């Protein structure tokens, strides 16, 4: 449902290879194509990477962003109602997630963290599959191999290495797919992320490190992780980087295309810092009022990624009632499907606890499973026989 021309990762050999004064950086300034007020500004290097984005596609990006915000709201509501055990909101990060994932090809592979429900939606996860982990009905939702999206990763930074290894495999296969690794600003402090950069640089693996700098790691501001810009970090590993306005879907799309294109052509890894903001709590279990200045939220509300795209569409005369109605209908339908999928999800069976620990029979597991099933039977037995 979600692949369109943008989704097919249109890249063009005729586009200029990305370059800048510092071969490793696009300069210190933020790559931006749409201002917070919704004006399309031109960029000498990156315009060409989104030249093909039609009015219709702009609308489709708008739709996706609106839909995933709606999923987020629905999920938060479901958590409050006790239907989900937990939910990590993506509110505010819609442009980062849609802009980046829409640049991917189907055969690319994605290793997300836990917050990329929007990416999962774009990759083609079913809505119930997205809900499944957070309801507590499984540790995975979608089949990773089917939609080429790994399961949510909770150990911070861990997936950056998996992405690099997968990219080494692509290289080994002689394929031109690319791997995308998502992680947060906080994750950059974990040793694994640094080691991933070492390996990616050493083997020139086709991997894109996509860091959503949403300014917070639970209660910790990004400056605790780094005094300098996060986009500076990879350069010392020999990895080029871009710093992009993460609330600008076109800029994110352009930067991601640049990175994917480089990787596909054997140019190795790229690091993208998408500067955005976590407008909600860390998870539904978190209370950001304990650590965050409300003014900060206000500042960022003025840079809202959806409002900005909406303003652009409006200025272009594209924000028709028809479009609004279509998007609204889609969001409603998705929300309803998400809710139904969540609530109607069948509970697992008790003995599932023993399944799939190993791919082949294992004597320890078999024995414990046998003993526990006898134990469970002893209850029905006791009901019949009146004694435990």
């Amino acid at each position: 449902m979600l692949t369109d021309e943008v989704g097919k990762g249109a890249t063009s050999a005729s586009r200029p290879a990305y370059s800048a004064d510092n071969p490793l950086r696009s300069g210190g300034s933020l790559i931006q194509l749409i201002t917070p007020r919704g004006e399309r500004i031109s960029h000498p290097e990156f315009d060409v990477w989104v030249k093909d984005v039609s009015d219709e596609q702009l609308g489709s990006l708008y739709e996706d962003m609106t839909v995933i915000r709606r999923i987020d709201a629905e999920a938060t509501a479901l958590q409050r109602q006790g239907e989900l055990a937990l939910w990590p909101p993506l509110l505010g990060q819609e442009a980062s997630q849609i802009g980046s994932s829409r640049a991917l090809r189907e055969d690319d592979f994605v290793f997300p963290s836990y917050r990329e429900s929007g990416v999962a939606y774009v990759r083609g996860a079913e809505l119930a599959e997205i809900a499944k982990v957070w309801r507590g009905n499984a540790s995975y939702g979608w089949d990773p191999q089917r939609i080429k999206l790994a399961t949510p990763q909770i150990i911070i930074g861990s997936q950056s290495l998996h992405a690099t290894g997968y990219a080494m495999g692509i290289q080994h296969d002689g394929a031109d797919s690319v791997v995308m690794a998502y992680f947060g600003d906080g994750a950059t402090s974990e040793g694994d992320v640094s080691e991933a950069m070492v390996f990616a640089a050493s083997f020139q693996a086709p991997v894109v490190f996509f860091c959503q700098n949403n300014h917070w790691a639970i209660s910790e501001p990004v400056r605790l992780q780094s005094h300098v810009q996060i986009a500076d970090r990879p350069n010392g590993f020999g990895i080029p980087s871009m710093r992009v306005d993460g609330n600008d879907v076109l800029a994110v799309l352009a930067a991601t295309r640049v990175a994917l294109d480089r990787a596909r052509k054997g140019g190795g890894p790229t690091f993208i810092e998408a500067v955005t903001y976590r407008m909600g709590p860390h998870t539904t279990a978190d209370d950001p009022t304990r650590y965050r200045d409300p003014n900060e939220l206000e500042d960022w509300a003025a840079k809202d990624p959806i409002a900005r795209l909406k303003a652009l569409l409006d200025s272009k005369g594209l924000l028709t009632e028809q479009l609004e109605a279509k998007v609204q209908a889609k969001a409603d339908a998705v929300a309803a499907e998400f809710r139904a999928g969540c609530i109607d999800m069948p509970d697992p069976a008790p003995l599932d606890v023993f399944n799939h620990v190993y791919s082949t029979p294992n004597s320890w597991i078999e024995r414990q499973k046998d003993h526990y099933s006898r134990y469970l039977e002893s209850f029905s037995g006791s009901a019949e026989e009146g004694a435990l």
Partner: protein
Amino acid sequence: MSTLTFARAINAGLRKSLESDPKVVLMGEDIGTLGGVFRVTDGLQKDFGTHRVVDTPLAESGIIGTAVGLAYRGYRPVCEIQFDGFIYPAFDQIVSQVAKMHYRTQGRVKMPITIRVPFGGGIGSPEHHSESPEAYFTHTSGLRVISVSNPQDAYTMIQQAIASDDPVLYFEPKRRYHDKGEVDETAELATALSMEKARVVNTGSDATLVAYGPLVKTARDAALAAADEGISVEVIDLRSLAPIDFPTVEASVRKTGRLVITHEAAQSGGLGAEIAASITERCFNYLEAAPVRITGFDVPYPYSKLEMHHLPDLDRILDGVDRALGRRNSLSGLEG
């Protein structure tokens, strides 16, 4: 005496340690402004400053590794690992540095580091938030490992851990954080029960039931339920997991002749194995039956909709007591 939740009791103990020793420094992720995701360090940064209650970058090896350096300099770092499942990135620093430094330097460098770990399941969390990794550390020579089961011990033993010149892993049963209990905040450390000692929390004569951390409460409930059936169960709260106070367990088993051990961690290689093996060595001739282990299964901690099947509960423990007593139980009729 005051009535405190488990979390507040630890908080009070941390406060006391911060007050009494200027070398005590708390460090961890989100422990400062936020006061920790469980609020265990609530208010401490405000009262003791950002130098003594330190929000660290998001890197567990970094937290423990810098704590090693601080200990070298004479500090007593108290590190919080946010959840059990996040301790593994720090495993190398714990096992190869914290645990071995004193031996390596033949006592020249002490490692009075306390590592606080909220552990165990039962709170409906996603993956990596409900682990019971204690056996990795009890098998690591050079570490002391303790676990607390009630607010009073939580309050006292966190101070004992911090005061210890040896490194201590302090396992907090996170599903009990909100349980309340009486805490005597005036109790002197000097006269408190040594943190190496187990405690008989319920005397009994038919079977010995050993538990620690979150399952002590469950074990006591099981003993109450057993009493209704006329079975007298002695419950021991281990408190110290390394070293284990075997003399206390041994004395009980010599009396009862039956031993049941319960923990949330996976059975194979868990603490239950060590307890069963050691008690069998120490009082083979007193045992009337093989020690019984009622534990988590040999599976990764399951997703939350299944966790009640994985976690030992009152009924499974009673089934184990029946087995130890040779009474009818779920495995009756099975050989062995």
